[in-house]
């Protein structure tokens, strides 16, 4: 196997796949990137057995073939090479000779036949989704994914395809983010699939704002994405996602219009006086004003008052500051609406698009 390739194109390709490389040292081949050369293209693939990514980059292939090389080491070498033209030859023992200007490297690889094969996509349901839509939806939901491994069905985003609608939901049991979008697909394709966190992170790296449509495929145990010359495949999280419909509150007693950035900055400042022991901010609504406050018995207190339009009876509610700021940071609308029932019921942030964020309050005893 033999090819010439542009340094920057090679590096960009390797960097797209290197995050998946396994940290498990017990199966060395998972630390390697699979390199397959054919038809003027190099295909670069990495996997940790749960998630796999592959990208294609242009190359001048003189001799077809495949091998695997240690991914992280290869990236550090390619990044440092002195000129843009690289020549790589792989011998029958999977040793790679890398020549670039005056530099020469020889690195030892492993036989590509030992690299785990890609999943079988026989009988997959297929969906076509605009990249911008998915990128936007992931941004609005992924921060709410649970990191608690004992609640493993929550360690991902649930995608529900039904009635030409895609509903994406993430929750950690204390807050829940949901985006609804129109996507066309045949009625027989209706499916619910939980995409694991690691795949969500990789997907966010691969998605381009100005990219075209991507193709998503779902089999019984795999979910894959094909976009911009790359493939992402991942195991699905097995199990049933909780019935999130039942936790979305009904009609609110109050709807409050808030300026997103003003609220975000105020909560952020006040939260500087929250602490591990006392991790809440209190929102007190009175006529035409909102007072945000925090106090920690051994540290001190902070408060900030915002002018708002509020005519209801005075009420207070306490939230975890991080849970309050997360959606505000990841939205771009100027105005958000906060729907409230009472101090013990979930609050809901909404915008003028099909999005909502349910947040459970904190019960504070005095």
């Amino acid at each position, binding site marked *: 196997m033999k090819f010439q390739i542009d340094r920057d194109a090679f590096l960009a390709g390797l960097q797209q796949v290197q995050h998946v490389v396994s940290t498990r040292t017990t199966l060395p081949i*998972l630390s390697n990137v699979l390199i397959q050369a054919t038809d003027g293209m190099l295909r670069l693939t990495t996997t940790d057995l749960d998630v796999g990514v592959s990208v294609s980059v242009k190359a001048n292939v003189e001799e077809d073939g495949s091998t695997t090389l240690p991914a992280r080491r290869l990236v550090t070498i390619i990044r440092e090479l002195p000129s843009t033209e690289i020549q790589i030859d792989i011998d029958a023992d999977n040793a790679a000779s890398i020549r670039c200007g005056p530099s020469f490297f020889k690195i030892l690889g492993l036989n590509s036949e030992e690299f785990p094969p890609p999943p079988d996509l026989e009988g997959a349901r297929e969906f076509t989704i605009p990249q911008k839509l998915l990128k936007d939806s992931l941004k609005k939901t992924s921060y709410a994914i649970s990191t608690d491994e*004992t*609640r493993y069905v*929550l360690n991902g985003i649930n995608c529900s395809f039904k009635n030409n609608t895609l509903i994406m939901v993430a*929750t950690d049991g204390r807050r829940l983010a949901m985006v609804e979008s129109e996507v066309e697909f045949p009625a027989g394709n209706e499916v619910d699939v939980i995409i694991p966190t690691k795949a969500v992170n990789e997907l966010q790296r691969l998605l381009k704002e100005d990219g075209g449509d991507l193709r998503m495929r779902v089999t019984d145990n795999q979910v894959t994405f094909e976009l911009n010359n790359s493939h992402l495949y991942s195991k699905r999280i097995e*199990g*049933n996602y*909780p019935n999130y419909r039942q936790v979305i509150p009904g009609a609110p007693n109050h709807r409050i219009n808030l300026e997103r950035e003003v609220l975000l900055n105020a909560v952020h400042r006040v939260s500087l006086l929250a602490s591990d022991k006392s991790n809440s901010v209190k929102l007190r609504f009175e006529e035409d004003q909102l007072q945000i406050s925090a106090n920690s018995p051994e540290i001190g207190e902070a408060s900030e008052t915002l002018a708002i339009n509020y005519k209801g009876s005075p009420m207070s509610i*306490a939230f975890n500051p991080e849970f309050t700021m997360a959606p505000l940071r990841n939205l771009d609308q100027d105005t958000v609406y906060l729907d409230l029932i009472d101090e013990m019921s979930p609050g809901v942030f909404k915008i003028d698009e099909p999005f909502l964020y349910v947040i459970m309050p*904190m019960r504070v005893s005095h």
Partner: protein
Amino acid sequence: MGRIIHVDMDCFYAAIELRERPELEGLPVAVGGGSRGVLTTCNYVARTFGCRSAMPVFQAKRLCPDLVLLPVRFELYREESRIIRGIFHEFTDRVEPLSLDEAYLDVTGLRSEAFLIASEIRQRIRERTGLAASAGIGPNKFLAKLASDWRKPDGQFEIRPEEVEAFMPGLPVERLWGVGSRTAARLHALGVRTCGDLQRLGLVELDRQFGRFGSLLHEMCRGIDHRLVDPNRERKSVSSEETFAADLSRRETGLERLGLLLDEVASMCQAKHVDRVIREGFVKLKFSDFTQTTAQRPMPTVVREDFEALLKEAWDRGQGRAVRLIGAGVRFQSRNDAVDRETQLDLFGAGDPIL
């Protein structure tokens, strides 16, 4: 290379009771009984008759008619545990208690040899409490725990890093964490009886057979364990589960099996975690199609009726599917939560269908 010590008290509660009543020395003694009617723990004499913790009292009496059954005195055991933890901290602050009578110590980088530290610890425990402890020393937590069983009771054993490669192949797979009778049977069917046999299976193959657990097996059979000793780690839950050789289709059979699991959970809570506050109980079912569901509700102790209701609730969610696994357990309140003045409320509450 790390140096970890696993210290495990021998028959902790029974040993304390025997110290208090030397006249019982040499007799079969158990601690337990009470409303649940099961043994919390028993001494080695009783074990030679076949008595075990979590065993119903009537059964233990049948095996050993002369068994002396003593009531549990948690306050006393907690105090002894506090003294023993104090001894650990004389050597290092990297102490991770697993329960009242068991802990990991990370002694990496200490000047003395780990083996000598372990014998010094056991010596001090004996001097100050009159109790016997066993210890295991190894390059990681998994091997240290394995080693502490080797010279039990009142002994210690070290697996040195350079011995791991020779030591592991002969170890039966049943000794690995998480390998119960069902997994063992599946491994036997693959011709795997020892860790050496297991080492010959590739990671890809193990992953295909056992999913996520496969990669853990792949590491454990080589004596690899990346977990660190974490002084702040606290156990979140205690549970017990059973995978059935043939799937259960009748709820009544499920209720019978649940009773045995609850005995185990209750005696683990009593034997090891009496210092913790129970927050809620849960019942997990795995169905024949490998989907699973968990029902849970707040409860202050192991309440049998509540667990039975949880089992019925979860069972009905299966809509007629047969059940291949039942798990039951309790989740503890975090030690930090106990002193907090504020509580984050949960969206799904206690009756959530799957969590």
